[in-house]
């Protein structure tokens, strides 16, 4: 049954309630990292870094099938998992930038991996096809030509990831009654 008809299914609702809270937790931890980047590097306002961003290739995962107009639950779930994987990899850039906060970054990566496998298991429970990603992330890390660009790159990885989480959160809430 297409996901949207499952709004009455108790297990599915429990899955949604749990992972709505999980997404809020991850969103809160990313906000904490953004505060650290602001305090540490004085990089706080996105509008002051638009010129620099044009020159940086920073990870950005799009969730076309999670937006209201083009909402398609099954694809949206797969896009969320794919995005979580991309940002899981690029968080290594943040860990290099903020060695003093490696624990917070590692907890964030653990939560992202858990959220992704929670979604995967729910999709499998619903008989949907899923992708199993290798545990180790082989994608090469972006390199930056200066500390400043490395710091700005980190700033935008977190900013993009926050927008990604907010979109994913709205999609899950749309499915929950």
């Amino acid at each position, binding site marked *: 049954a297409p996901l949207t008809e499952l709004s009455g299914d108790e297990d599915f609702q*429990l899955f949604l*309630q*749990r*992972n709505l*809270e*999980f997404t*809020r*937790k991850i*969103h*809160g931890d990313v906000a904490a990292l953004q505060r650290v980047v602001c305090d540490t590097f004085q990089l706080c306002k996105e509008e002051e870094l638009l010129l620099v961003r044009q020159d940086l290739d920073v990870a950005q995962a799009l969730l076309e099938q999670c937006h209201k107009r083009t909402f398609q639950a099954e694809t949206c779930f797969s896009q969320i998992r794919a995005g979580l994987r991309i940002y899981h990899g690029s968080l290594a850039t943040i860990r290099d930038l903020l060695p003093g906060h490696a624990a917070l970054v590692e*907890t964030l990566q*653990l*939560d992202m991996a*858990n*959220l992704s*496998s*929670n979604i995967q*298991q729910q999709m499998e429970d619903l008989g949907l096809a899923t992708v199993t990603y290798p545990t180790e992330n082989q994608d090469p890390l972006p390199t930056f030509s200066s500390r400043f660009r490395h710091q700005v790159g980190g700033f935008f990885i977190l900013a993009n990831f926050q927008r990604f989480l907010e979109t994913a959160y709205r999609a899950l809430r749309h499915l929950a009654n």
Partner: protein
Amino acid sequence: GGTLGCASVAVGSPIVPLGSAVTASCTIQRELCRGLEQGKVRIIWMLDNKLVAGSQHQGPGGTEVSNLTLPRFNHTQARLWCCVEWNGTKQRIGMAEIRAGYPPAKPLNLSCILNLSDYGLTCRWEQGTDSHLPTSIVLKCAGSRAQVVTGCTPQGGHSHCTVPRRLLQLYRQMEIWVSATNALGTAESEHLRIDPMDVAKLDPPTLQSIQSIPFQTDCIALAWDVARGTEHMELQCELRYRAPEDPAWVLVTGIIGRAGTAQRCGFLFGTQYHFQMRCRRSSASALAYWSEWSPGRNYTTHEKAPTG
């Protein structure tokens, strides 16, 4: 069994149920025993330091064999010595260690708490009667598809251990149980099927401010904040208050929401009240733990407003 080359001791099993029978045999190949070649060989058995009687006979190839049966072995640990007389002395020439005990008892009353400061899951259980045998006890933790089984091992004989965050699946049902194994068997506790978040132990909320609502002086407005690290959770909170001389608390349940305010009326005028609050996750699980009651706050309501 311990072999000397010239003598070998064999036992049915080195570990037996307590009180069961133990059989052993000591075989001496005279030609391999320097000094025992001539004369009669008399085999003597000792259980630790107590003589016990065996039955000796000639075995194949000129060996001397003595069989021993202990009908009810009730030591938890003992050494069975095979000895011979030699130059007027008793020579210990073979030995077997025997342990006895019980299969492990079923671990009972398994319960777990998720500590929100490090997201470690600490589980406790009751071990049951001692099996007297080396017993390996492990807490096991599996995702519901049980692909990967992780967990933790209690240290120093304790009946609790903590599963670190990286071995947990949050916001999803896991299966948790205790497994105890020794030479005589294995026992498993009940299996808990819980989402670790359902057993999260929250820090208490903090009562920020308490004020009378001006025009209805018998009502107060109370502002409270949730504990750090729980801002993202759906919480269910309770408020209790009483005047110092009241024996019983008034309990206000079902306060929902993440942080906020609550209003309450029916207070006496010019009276000091003591307020406390606690919260828990409003998850479906009946296992959810209440936080401790928050540190108390006192508030004295207005004197009665002059009428007319």
